[in-house]
């Protein structure tokens, strides 16, 4: 082979690998990306049952019920709408009523209930996942550091709003 042919072979091989990779990425995006919703969005979202989404909001006070074994049910609210959620497994350390939560899962085709397979929480006393905080602040339901409304009261004199902690995912994030 001449130098030119060799170079063509290398470039051709490289390009085909890159093209495969691009298709793979696009396919994976279409398969495994979960969109974030708040309860009020769901009315207009027109979701198919079984579509994986992330559902965020506040855990409604008084809604947490322990069922059989380690199944827990609770209601996620954003002030205007609510969605009942069921989850089997261990809840994060900081899962509390009246505080923010993000769950990932899908709507069951038969029962129309939201079945979560992971519950995400932050490992911090200022317990408010970012997506939820952004939206609630926009809607005026919750404010940073005021301790009013449904927000947790903050330790006195904390100058910085949130020293964020690792989002804790509990549940089977399929390996």
């Amino acid at each position, binding site marked *: 082979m001449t130098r030119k042919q060799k170079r063509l072979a290398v470039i051709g091989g490289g390009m085909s690998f890159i093209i495969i990779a691009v298709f793979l990425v696009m396919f*994976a995006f279409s398969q495994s990306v979960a969109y974030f919703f708040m309860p009020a969005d769901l009315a207009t979202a027109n979701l198919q049952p079984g579509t994986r989404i992330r559902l965020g909001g506040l855990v409604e006070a008084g809604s947490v019920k322990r069922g059989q074994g380690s199944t827990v049910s609770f209601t996620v609210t954003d002030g205007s709408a609510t969605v009942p959620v069921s989850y089997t497994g261990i809840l994060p350390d900081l899962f509390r009523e009246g505080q923010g939560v993000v769950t990932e899962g899908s709507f069951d085709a038969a029962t129309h209930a939201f079945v979560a397979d992971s519950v995400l929480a932050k490992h911090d006393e200022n317990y408010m996942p970012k997506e939820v905080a952004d939206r609630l602040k926009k809607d005026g339901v919750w404010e940073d550091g005021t301790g009013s409304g449904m927000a947790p009261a903050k330790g006195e004199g904390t100058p910085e709003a949130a020293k964020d902690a690792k989002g804790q995912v509990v549940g089977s994030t399929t390996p």
Partner: protein
Amino acid sequence: MIVEIGHFALVLALATAIIVSVLPVVGAYRRDASMMAVGTTGSLVMFGLVALSFASLTWAYVVSDFSVKNVWENSHSLMPMIYKYSGVWGNHEGSMMLWLLILVFFSALVAVFGRNIPDTLKANVLAVQAWISLAFLLFILLTSNPFTRLDPAPAEGQDLNPILQDFGLAIHPPLLYLGYVGFSVCFSFAVAALMEGRIDAAWARWVRPWTLAAWTFLTAGIAMGSYWAYYELGWGGWWFWDPVENASFMPWLAGTALLHSALVMEKREALKIWTVLLAIMTFSLSLLGTFLVRSGVLTSVHAFATDPSRGIFILCILAIFIGGAFMLFAWRAPTLKAGGLFAPISREGSLVLNNLILTVSTATVLTGTLYPLVLETLTGEKISVGAPFFNMTFGLLMLPLLIAAPFGPLLAWKRADLVGAFQRVWVFAGLALLIGLVLWYMQNGGPVLALFGLALGCWGMLGAVADLWYRGNFGKLPVMTSLRRLKGLPRSAWGTAIAHFGLGVTVIGIVAASAFSTEHVVEMKQGQTAQSGGYSLTFDGFREAVGPNFTEERGHFTVSSGGVAVADVWSSKRLYTARRMPTTEAGILTFGLSQLYVSLGDPMDGGGIVVRIWWKPLILCIWGGCLIMMIGGFVSLSDRRLRVGAPSRKAKPVKAVMEPAE
């Protein structure tokens, strides 16, 4: 007083950085030896000053001086001493100090050990290092000053985030930063060489030890971080494809590619332009990682800061350095001459394949990490790109690399015989398949893909053995002669074999832990028994315990096999008193390379508790393999040809080639 000295030293370091940024470059341009020598002295002075500054911050932590805001926010007088030390970098300001300290440490190393590097190149390298130091010194002094005082001083601190109070955290950041920041040297070498417009095999020889050292530490840092997340966060996973993990993983992938392409450049003078580009890209990814982690755009345990001005500042640093380096590259690269020729099937060819796969995978990870951020900025839509995406794309792209890795070292330079290489390794491939089968049978069950994965891991391990086997010419020569030949092999060949072996071990660990681990979530009352991984666990009840700055409920489990008690394990829920923050401390029992992982959930009505039990077969292989890779890195680093500063026979003539002025 001591704190003020630290602050002052940092300001002095800034002044020194300005001098070192300018004088050596001018000196290199004018061939003025005394001006170039400023680079060496200045870098050492800078290291001394930053070290003094860092030490004074550490002192404030050790004596719990809560009049320093940073200490007050992240420490507590009752905290154990080791966490007072590690608390220094367990927060935004302190971790930037550590970043800077390691950066100037590397500059000082170049200054001390770079004796056989031509003076002009060395001066330029040190100047580029000083530019980076300057940027980060400004960042710390203007936006993240750790020496800010509080008046009046509070009596007690707010405590360090409890999940950071762990031995793993004490050593994870320094190791990670040694890797992350170590790539700055490669970057500086690339930029300095582009400034001089002169790059050859000798350049690759000078850069390779730094790449190797940085890579080795980064491997250790990532493995340590992964193990820390595994046992401290209490939900049994070891890798989450969390953007912050990706931020450290991308420089690792690019650095691995750089390590291999520098090899081609050193031996064959080929792939010059590509290697320089990779050196720039690797450190750019380190900077990007720093931005992602430090700017607060991500929610993560690492994102301490949410001050937007910091994010913008780091973004500017990012833009200046990455943009500048790429512009310099675009301007100078066309003047570099193409190097040696090689056939597609050859050692060079296999290393090109390695680079292709590694960079494409890096790009994939980068896409998955940045896509949600970009989408949110552009459209406001919030999405999450999680493990399924990365497993599908990255996992599949890595397959050809794992298959090809053992072939590489067996191929000859320039042009090689793939059929011959196949013939030499088929025995080992067969053996690998067999061991994979046996392991699969032993774990009875598991999908076919896992079987393939195990075989692939064994193939990686045995391929490395095959490499040594043929280099020693075992089977053809008497055993003693072969052993002598092995002993005479260059250390870098040993390093390659060991690191590739480690890769195989890690693959086995990943496959086994992903495919064969079992998980039970059960409600247990005192005296009840649960089964996992062939062991039965009996819950014996709770005991209250009090730690230095926490209280805990410790659950005791007796583990028995076939009715005989073999071990016991404590798993607990802690409440850190200062922050009123609960954490889960998992109980982990090791059986050989496998682990039993017990984590406590919520108490139930009626005295029971939810318990989560995992059986994780061969999971220790994941980190064991990383450890072996690290050893491979160190062995390779001890190769005589790469030893930094060692007078080598080859260096002299090469130096003569480099010296004539253009």
